[in-house]
């Protein structure tokens, strides 16, 4: 009898296991790579977390889909005063907020929401400032506290922001995720209930998708917001299925369990491209991987040595071996997708003989010994720093330079690099706001050359620095473009780095997905995306 029951039980289980559920229409599944820290882009620092917050929110201005150009969003239009200090934003009327489980908005979006969103980050005595830890990394990193003089509500639909100094990239900052607009009414309601931290975990915004539920480490669900100011989205549901392993994401795509897959294994890309059931997209990332020379340390204080090393390394071979096709050689410090990229610049040729002559001229006919720092982790701009370091080491040996590879834990690595402990090092950068200032001033300006600053070549060139500072204080894009192009010429002549590569970012999609555009910032955005039946 027992055996019969057991057999029946097993049979039942087997029957249940075999049956498959039916498919729902217009649900897009994105197999995301990790769990978010929270749902508040003001406090997040990772792309993974920005991805989950952005469907819910809008900013005053936004980057055009798939580009770095700034276009209107919650602000219909804006004007800048002649002195470049006062920005006046005309807000869009009739914009609705989402309703949530414990909130129904009683009013449309207005200037109070803008004030609330910025003041939370800016004012240390704001009731929300300390909520959920109160760290606003990007707001601080983009130097907003020093930049902002005042934010005023002129009327319900007008906001005036006054700056302390002219800062042309400011408007691009406002399109960054940290500048998302929250509902002041929702925040007040939560504060009254004594649960302000829910603002950061149960998001309410004006964005194209409305948050439904998050099952920790597993699934995030959104539905299209019917009353979205720019019209309802073509898809009905958006689901993030958290899948940390790249091989498993690939398997899920093949099995039809997800439609969009980020960060494929480089080794899988060729096979994906062969597969008719998978669409592979690629784009140059907004990044640069470089080999920096510490210009404050001998022998790298001599420009001839820096130029010689630029000629001694076979960049093409590195890109093929390290990036396996997922990279493009870099000649400038900014990527080619960025405006003001100077394409007239000629890169140093790969010429070991000439490099040797230059080294001899500089007083090193027999070369010298140096360290060569390589980071221990995979970064978007450098998939394998150790391998890259070994190839550079071999190239340098050919011109007599004996390099010793040094590596350490990532946090420590960055810290000591910024302290300037190294002679030469591999490093890189991923852009924040799509503005050339974010590379040229942040990575190569004199201010960042101090100990602890992000100019790891510790390179301070007055002429270069003046151009970059001037561009920062000019709001006219054409004038700024000229200044940045000139700065890139000086960079090439002075050679504080050997720019190695800009990575190519890949996405794998089901052919059912229509209209997906890759974002140059590396964020995954789903507004405007549709699905074929």
């Amino acid at each position, binding site marked *: 009898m027992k055996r019969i029951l057991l057999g029946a039980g097993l049979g039942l*289980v087997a029957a*249940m*296991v*075999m*049956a*498959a*559920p*039916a*498919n*729902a229409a217009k*649900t897009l*599944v994105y197999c995301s790579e*990790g*769990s978010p*820290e*929270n749902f508040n882009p003001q406090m997040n*620092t990772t792309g993974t977390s920005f991805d989950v917050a952005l469907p819910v929110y809008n900013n005053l201005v936004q980057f055009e889909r798939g580009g770095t150009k700034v276009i209107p969003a919650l602000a219909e239009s804006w004007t800048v005063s002649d002195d470049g200090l006062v920005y006046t934003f005309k807000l869009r009327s009739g914009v609705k907020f989402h309703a949530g489980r414990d909130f129904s908005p009683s009013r449309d979006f207005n200037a109070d929401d803008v004030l609330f969103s910025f003041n939370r980050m800016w004012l240390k005595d704001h009731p929300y400032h300390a909520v*959920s*830890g109160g*760290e606003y*990394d990007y707001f*601080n*990193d983009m130097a907003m506290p020093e930049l902002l003089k005042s934010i005023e509500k002129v009327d319900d639909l007008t906001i005036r922001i006054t700056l302390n100094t002219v800062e042309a990239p400011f408007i691009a900052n406002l399109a960054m995720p940290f500048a998302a607009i929250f509902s002041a009414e929702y925040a007040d309601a939560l504060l009254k209930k004594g649960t302000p*931290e829910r603002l*950061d975990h149960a998001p309410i915004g004006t964005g194209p998708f409305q948050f439904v539920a998050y*099952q*920790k*480490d*597993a*699934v995030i*669900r959104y539905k299209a917001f019917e009353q979205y100011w720019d019209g309802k989205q073509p898809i009905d549901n958006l*689901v993030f*299925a*958290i*899948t*940390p*392993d790249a*091989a*498993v994401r690939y*398997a*899920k795509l*093949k*099995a039809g*369990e997800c439609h969009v897959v980020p960060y494929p294994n480089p080794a899988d890309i060729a096979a994906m491209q062969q597969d008719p059931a998978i669409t592979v997209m690629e784009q140059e990332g907004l990044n640069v991987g470089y080999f920096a020379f510490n210009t404050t340390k001998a022998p790298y204080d001599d420009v001839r040595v820096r130029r010689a090393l630029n000629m001694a390394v076979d960049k093409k071979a590195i890109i093929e071996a390290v990036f396996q096709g997922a990279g493009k050689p870099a000649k400038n410090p900014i990527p080619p997708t960025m405006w003001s990229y100077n394409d007239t610049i000629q890169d140093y040729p790969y010429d070991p003989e000439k490099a040797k002559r230059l080294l001899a001229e500089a007083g090193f006919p027999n070369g010298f010994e140096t360290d060569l720092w390589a980071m221990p982790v995979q*970064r978007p701009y450098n998939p394998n720093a150790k391998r890259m370091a070994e190839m550079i080491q071999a190239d340098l040996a050919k011109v007599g330079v004996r390099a010793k590879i040094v590596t*350490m*834990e*990532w*946090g*420590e690595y*960055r*810290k000591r690099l*910024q302290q300037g402990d190294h002679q030469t090092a591999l*490093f*890189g*950068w*991923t852009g924040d706001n799509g503005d050339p200032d974010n590379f040229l001033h942040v990575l190569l300006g004199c201010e960042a050359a101090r100990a*602890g*600053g*992000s100019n790891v070549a510790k390179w301070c060139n007055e002429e270069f620095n003046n151009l970059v500072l001037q561009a920062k204080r000019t709001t006219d894009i054409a004038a700024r473009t000229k200044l940045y192009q000139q700065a890139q010429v000086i960079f090439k002549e002075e050679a504080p780095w050997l720019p190695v590569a800009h990575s190519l970012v890949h996405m794998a999609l089901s052919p059912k997905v229509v209209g997906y555009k890759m974002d140059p910032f590396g964020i995954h955005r789903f507004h405007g995306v549709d699905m074929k039946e």
Partner: protein
Amino acid sequence: MPPPPRCGAAAIRLPFPIPYPPMLRFLLTRAGLVVPTFLGITVLAFFLIRLVPGDPIEVRVGERGIAPERLAELRHAMGLDQPLWKQYADYLGNVLTGDFGVSLVTRNAVIDEFLSLFPATIELAAAAILFAVVVGLPAGVLAAVRRGSVVDHTVMGLSLTGYSMPIFWWGLLLILLFSVNLGWTPVSGRLDLLYYVEPETGFMLIDTLLAGDTDAFRSALRHLVLPAVVLGTIPLAVIARMTRSAMLEVLGEDYIRTARAKGLREKRVIGLHALRNALIPVVTVIGLQAGTLLGGAILTETIFSWPGIGKWLVESINRRDYPALQGGILLIATTVIAVNLLVDLLYGVLNPRIRHAR
């Protein structure tokens, strides 16, 4: 394989007599041992993660770096500017009052995060050990009864293979075969995305039944099969080998010969007289698998995107989320200790001699 050392109460000799009944004395001695173990774990959990370079702020900063003033401010806010011994003392004090602290990343209470994820791990581990026992025990008995036959060699060969199988590779292999090529099981996750079940108990099989949704229950079951098989493979191998050697030992005993001489059917001899006596070392081994299961769960959960504590702990290490990590390790260790205690108690049920003879 030699029989495992008998662990448990028999090994402990107290220098003074305790005037309690044997079972209670046994319990008290076992419980007394838990205290130093527990303290040792807090020390390890606390200091090991701090030996890893890069503190919670450093790892978040990325290429940009951080201003020294801001770093100091954040370190102060997280209490990282205190001397290490003081941080530990504070931590221990809090833990003793049941306060495991707040995650530095999500700002949720560690105990809440743990409890919301732990059922998923338990569900997976329970399914895995069920699979291991259901397959491993009969396989081991069979191998012992047919000692030296093809069956024996097959079972032993397969179990050695299973034991040495890297979980990561084994998991991906099964996914490629059963999910991608054959389409029998889903690749990963706990439930098809079509279904949304309000978490009541955290156990998906129970929650779907509570919700009265049999389709969702089926989906949860389908999702459980592959990860349970992957996680259960090593315990299966261990159980099969242990059952075999324990059975071989028992089968040579006089009472088995007596049972056979009585004219009992062979099935009854094996199933009742031999197996029941062979079970004690096997149960010990099953109990010890609790640690293996929770360790293996870390890899299995990563492969199958299973939202349990394994995945959570790995992420906490990467983020240097000290409170989450310390709390997580401590709570897992507590679970393992509790399971082992339970196993010790189970001996008494299985073997009356242990219950009474002291």
